[in-house]
């Protein structure tokens, strides 16, 4: 039996929209094994982003418990969760979300500012991360000087630089052409297989989902995530 990295039990999340209560996730149970690469598919508004936010500790469930890597997120204070996230979770977004005022190198170093590494160690680690994503030669470039695919690689380097066990990717290829998307997905496969990262990837794209080990479908938002047939 493989270890379970993330365990969600009875998780619900409702939002108040004006007078209306919208239950985005309802009584969800989910287990993510260590070392897995999972794709989550589903229509817009079905709660995929909400799910990632909950697992990453950006959001809190209305009911239920979430345990990631032994940390009981639902009982931790905000600042504890924040600190925990810096060392355990890597986030990758659809629009890369790099800081435009910083070079690729400095963007990748950002998460390390929260560690006790000194400037030299931070620079070394960022250089390794950039090397892993194949952008060692772009370290001094600013985001505006990079292509979309390159920006996403920098974002991936930033996500892995503090060596988290879990990568949460919200439509990471949603803004890229097929070819570039496939390169990014292959890179994620390498991170999963060779670097042992557990990956949860939300995607709209069935072809992208095929890079994962398995696909979960998020239906109608209010229901549950079920195994694909």
């Amino acid at each position, binding site marked *: 039996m493989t270890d379970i990295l993330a365990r969600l039990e009875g998780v619900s999340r409702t939002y108040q929209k004006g007078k209306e209560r919208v239950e985005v996730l309802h009584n969800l149970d989910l287990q993510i094994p260590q070392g897995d690469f999972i794709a989550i598919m589903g229509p817009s508004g079905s709660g995929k982003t909400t799910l990632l936010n909950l697992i990453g500790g950006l959001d809190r469930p209305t009911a239920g418990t979430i345990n990631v890597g032994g940390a009981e997120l639902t009982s931790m204070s905000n600042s504890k969760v924040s600190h925990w996230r810096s060392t355990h979770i890597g986030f990758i977004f659809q629009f890369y979300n790099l800081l435009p005022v910083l070079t690729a190198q400095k963007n990748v170093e950002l998460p390390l500012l929260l560690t006790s590494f000194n*400037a030299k160690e931070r620079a070394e680690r960022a250089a390794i991360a950039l090397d892993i994503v194949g952008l060692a030669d772009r370290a001094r470039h600013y985001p505006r000087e990079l292509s979309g695919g390159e920006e996403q690689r920098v974002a991936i380097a930033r996500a892995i630089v503090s060596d988290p066990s879990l990568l949460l990717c919200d439509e990471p290829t949603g803004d890229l052409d097929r070819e570039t998307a496939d390169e990014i997905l292959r890179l994620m496969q390498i991170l999963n297989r060779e670097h042992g990262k557990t990956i949860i990837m939300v995607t709209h794209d069935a072809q992208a989902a095929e890079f994962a080990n398995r696909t979960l479908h998020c239906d109608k938002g209010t229901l549950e995530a079920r195994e694909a047939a």
Partner: protein
Amino acid sequence: MKYFGLVWRNAWRKKIRTSLTILSVFVAFLLFALLSAFGHAFKYGVEAADAERLIIIDKISLINLLPIAYQNRIKATEGVHSVTHSTWFGGYYQEPRNQFPQFPVDPHEYFAMYPEFKMPEEQFEAWVKNRTGAVVGRELADSFGWEVGDRIPIQATIWTKADGGRTWEFDIEGIFASDDPRGSSALFLFQYDYFDEARAFGQGLVGWYILRVERGADPVQVQNAIDTQFENSRNQTETSTEAAFAQSFAKQFGNIALIVTLILGAVFFTLLLVSGNTMSQSVRERISELAVLKTLGFGDRTVLGIVLSESILIMLIGGLLGIGVGWFVTRGIAVAAGAFLPGVYFSPTAILASIALMVGAGVAAGIFPALQAMRLSIIDALARA
């Protein structure tokens, strides 16, 4: 300060906007430095004053002269230790803009009254022996490059000579210095006896008296005793402490100082609006970036600190440039006009105060945007992006 790079890069996100903000900070603090230096000059006479010295002037006006005969009567008043006199000569050296205080005095009495003025014994003796001799303060000698032995012509604006001439020539016999760092030594002193003999009019009249109260005597009682004594004389007197005298002199500038303070207040108020606006725009523009920082695990307080540091950094850049330039300018003024307006000085205390003001203004301008950044909800901010 490992966040400095991030703060620095963020501060320069919009170069023109940041430059303009820094420029306005610069102007405000330059103004602050100048005003503080001039304020120092106004307060300076008051600080340098000696509480045991009283000044006696004509009750009607500072300009009216008092009879020299008063000196013995003042001397005889109970509680008076010693008394001397001085008169405003009001001349200039070479050009009208070279004005500085020149006083005809009694050398022994005057130097006994002002023990803080120090000069070599032999120079003092030489002065006493030379009727047309003069002694000058170190500050004054330095600003005109005078040395002992020089013959200095002073152009009279009030006191014509009995022979009709307006040029008074004096031999510099000595240079004195004040060992009280607050006091000015930018004075030109010459012998009253010579002055009284050579002037065309006003014989037997002096500008004001300076007296020292006996140790243990109450200055207020002495003050009243003197003024009562001359109540029925032709010239009534008004006696005040040297500090009060300096204050009433400084009061002429007081209203200007108030106006200037109000202007400065308005400038700083505007400054806070300008830089506060810069900061809140800057935060608004990067809501999603701040959310990303938080996603990466930056705590709420760290984010608050980063935004606040940026605001303080902008203030410090502009402010330090401002007081730096201000320091050079006030030094220039002090050298050029020191004799005329002594005490122009941007003091270390004022420098520290202005740095504290920079940090304070940085916090004031940045606190609301910083709190906004701190309270930012990650999911809302990312959803909006």
